[in-house]
């Protein structure tokens, strides 16, 4: 059991297409690079000023002193801007051949082939393919890459942009604010319910290239939307940095679900700030699956600022050899009668380290609020690590907080039972892990649930020595 699971180069998605870039900025981060990015994108003056201010914040903030060790990130050796094609495409035929080849090799799930028409596929730092279903256009749904949205809807964009995650929030949010490129912008008008999940596929494909996408989703009063992002990335020798910012606004009575299946290759630093604000009676659901990456630090959060708002966070982390998954969630109750749940499942195997880090905060005025946190960890061998860091802060006596955590291993009884049914040990372990994470996986759209189970099996291969 203690035998080490070898990392081989035949990682499922470990291929790369020859780099063929329209524009690739130099390495390193300077004022000139930021100005160049803004100039290339023909941005308004306020955005340039915003970026420069963010750059100053980034340079003045120290690296975080908590969580994972990030000291190996070499900010000077990263490309801060790469553009694959010089414009976004309206139809699939316009997408360059080598980029299409990559998507083919990736085996884009059926879900995406089917709804390709409504998909924003991000290749490199920008969305290269964009097509909105006619139906949604009629309903007034805006589904664009963030750069285009800034051009086409400048006022709406400015109204919400950086209001949820300001550059001053943390060092990596500042970095993103300075050099952001690409990402998704969604606006759903009042009362509109989008019944098919909107999806985007992300990839990083240039060595030492950071990806700094910026996503902004606004659901107007009573609107309903489910957004799905999934990531796979090829393996590279040098460490890559992914520092995204996701901002979500759920106005009165809106419901937003944001689902992530993260499977970055094992050299990527995944440092993402995801935050939502839920107004009166709004519901925000984060489903966050973390399978890949070298080091992940990600805590989707919900600020419940309107009475009756609700937040659900479902977090899954699977850490194998050389991986550290520091995941979790934060719920901030800042209005009366708000409710929230956090469900976290983490699995560590083959020497990996999985952590839950979370915050529950009940402010003074959040009377009648309720929250329940459940975090479970499964450790599959004697050299893997599982940590739990929950923070509970309650300033209101008329509320109720529950927190429960457990750490366990696959028991001999479970394996014995499955063995008695003729199931070999490796398969049995895989089944037990699948059962353990089921509470999260069943919240995924079916195609993703299938993919998730496949990814877990892949991770588990060779874990029985």
């Amino acid at each position, binding site marked *: 059991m203690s035998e080490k699971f070898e990392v081989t180069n035949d990682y499922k998605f470990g291929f790369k297409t020859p780099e063929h870039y329209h524009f690739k900025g130099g390495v390193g981060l300077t004022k000139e690079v930021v100005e160049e990015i803004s100039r290339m994108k023909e941005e308004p003056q306020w955005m340039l000023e915003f970026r420069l201010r963010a750059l100053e914040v980034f340079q003045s903030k120290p690296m975080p002193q908590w969580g994972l060790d990030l000291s190996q990130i070499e900010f000077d050796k990263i490309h801060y801007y790469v553009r694959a094609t010089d414009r976004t495409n309206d139809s699939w035929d316009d997408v360059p051949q080598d980029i299409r080849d990559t998507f083919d090799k990736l085996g884009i799930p059926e879900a995406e082939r089917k709804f390709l028409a409504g998909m924003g596929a991000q290749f490199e730092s920008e969305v290269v393919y964009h097509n909105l279903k006619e139906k949604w256009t009629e309903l007034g749904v805006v589904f664009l890459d963030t750069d285009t949205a800034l051009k086409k809807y400048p006022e709406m964009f400015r109204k919400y942009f950086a209001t949820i995650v300001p550059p001053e929030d943390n060092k990596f949010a500042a970095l993103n604010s300075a050099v952001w490129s690409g990402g998704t912008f969604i606006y759903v008008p009042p009362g509109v319910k989008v019944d098919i999940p909107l999806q985007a596929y992300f990839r990083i494909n240039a060595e030492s290239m950071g990806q700094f996408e910026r996503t902004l989703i606004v659901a107007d009063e009573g609107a309903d939307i489910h957004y799905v992002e999934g990531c796979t990335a090829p393996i590279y020798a040098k460490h890559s940095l992914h520092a995204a910012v996701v901002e979500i606004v759920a106005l009165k009575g809106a419901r937003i679900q944001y689902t992530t299946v993260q499977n970055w290759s094992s050299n990527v630093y995944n440092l993402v700030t995801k935050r939502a604000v839920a107004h009166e009676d709004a519901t925000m659901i984060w489903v966050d699956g973390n399978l890949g990456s070298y080091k992940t630090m990600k805590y989707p959060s919900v600020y419940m600022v309107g009475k009756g708002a609700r937040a659900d966070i479902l977090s899954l982390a699977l850490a194998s050899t050389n991986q550290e998954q520091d995941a979790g969630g934060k719920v901030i109750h800042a209005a009366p009668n708000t409710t929230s749940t956090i469900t976290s499942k983490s699995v560590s195997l083959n020497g990996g380290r999985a952590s839950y880090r979370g915050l529950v905060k009940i402010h003074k005025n959040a009377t009648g609020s309720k929250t329940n946190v459940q975090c479970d960890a499964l450790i599959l061998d004697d050299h893997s690590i599982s940590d739990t860091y929950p923070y509970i802060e309650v300033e209101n006596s008329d509320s109720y907080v529950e*927190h429960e*955590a*457990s750490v366990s291993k696959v028991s001999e009884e479970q394996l014995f039972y499955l063995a008695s049914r003729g199931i070999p040990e490796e398969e049995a372990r895989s089944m037990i892990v699948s059962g353990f994470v089921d509470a999260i996986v069943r919240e995924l759209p079916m195609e993703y649930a299938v993919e998730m189970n496949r990814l877990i099996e892949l991770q588990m291969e060779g874990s029985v020595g």
Partner: protein
Amino acid sequence: MNYNLPSTQDELWRRTRPDRFDPNQSMTSSVVGDLRIDTSPSKGVHVLPLADARAHFPLLLKQSSVQEIPNFARLIEERGNEGVFVFVEPGAGNGEEVRIRFDLSLTQGSHGALRNFVVVSPDTRVRLVETVEDPGGEQAFASTRVLVGRGAKLEYLRSWNLNRKAYWHSGIHLNEGATAQVTTFARGSGISKIEEVAELAGDGADLDELFVDEAKGRFHIDAGMTVRHLAPNTRSRLKVRGVVRDKGYSLHHGNIKVIREAPGSDTYFSSRHLLLSRKGRADVIPKLEIDIDDVKAGHGATVGSVDPEAIFYLMSRGLTKEDSEGLYVEGFLTELFQRFPEMEGESRREG
């Protein structure tokens, strides 16, 4: 000696600023308070002031198995000259009760640093009752080291009434098969920072701890309990019960670590807070760091108020609202009173 004293950058000191305490001041006072030994122990059980212990048991005082002493506590230990020394000789100690009482009234308006040692020899049993009475003053510091020998049993009951800025440290080291049942009732006013480190260093060591605090007025209590499972088959149970009134603030850190060399360990941290006022605050940070698969580890935490249905029931039986709530709180603290019956009156007086 210079130690890197904590700053607010340190995770354990983020909510109680270390610069509120000035350990250098504790040098200025040589009189800590009135130390009373309310007990006449049997043969082989020694209870004496630290100064006397230096003459009688110099070697024992040098021996300390506790590995992880916070720097702040180390400083207190260097400065502290007064305190008590409890030593249960091998072959002695058959469950006797030893009572010690610290009356801090002599240090009113001044500062003090206490330093205590408890050594329980292998295969002995003792019950230690420690009372700290404090009418108020500037600041007080204490560091207590406890060593429980192989197969020994310690029952340790602590009643702390802390009415000034107080830093209280205890380091508990358990050897193979040793058992410690620790019960603490803390209340008072002012700012209290409690740091406890328990090391389960021998196979089968067992720690069972109940920590109760009543935070009222502006009482600020920040209690950190670190449990390190360093040997196989060790077991720990930490229970925290907090009652918060007025502008009280009760904060509990639980830091539980199970290292790779401690398979078969079993740990659970349970924390419950009753928040009885609009301006009170309760925080819980129950951390787990687990480096091996063969463990049972978990924690549970709740923060809530009195159950309105229970109050309604009691009032329907003719009790007033205040009495009903009092009874509810008493019920909440049942386990404290079972373990430490004298505290029942204390709690009533406080509430």
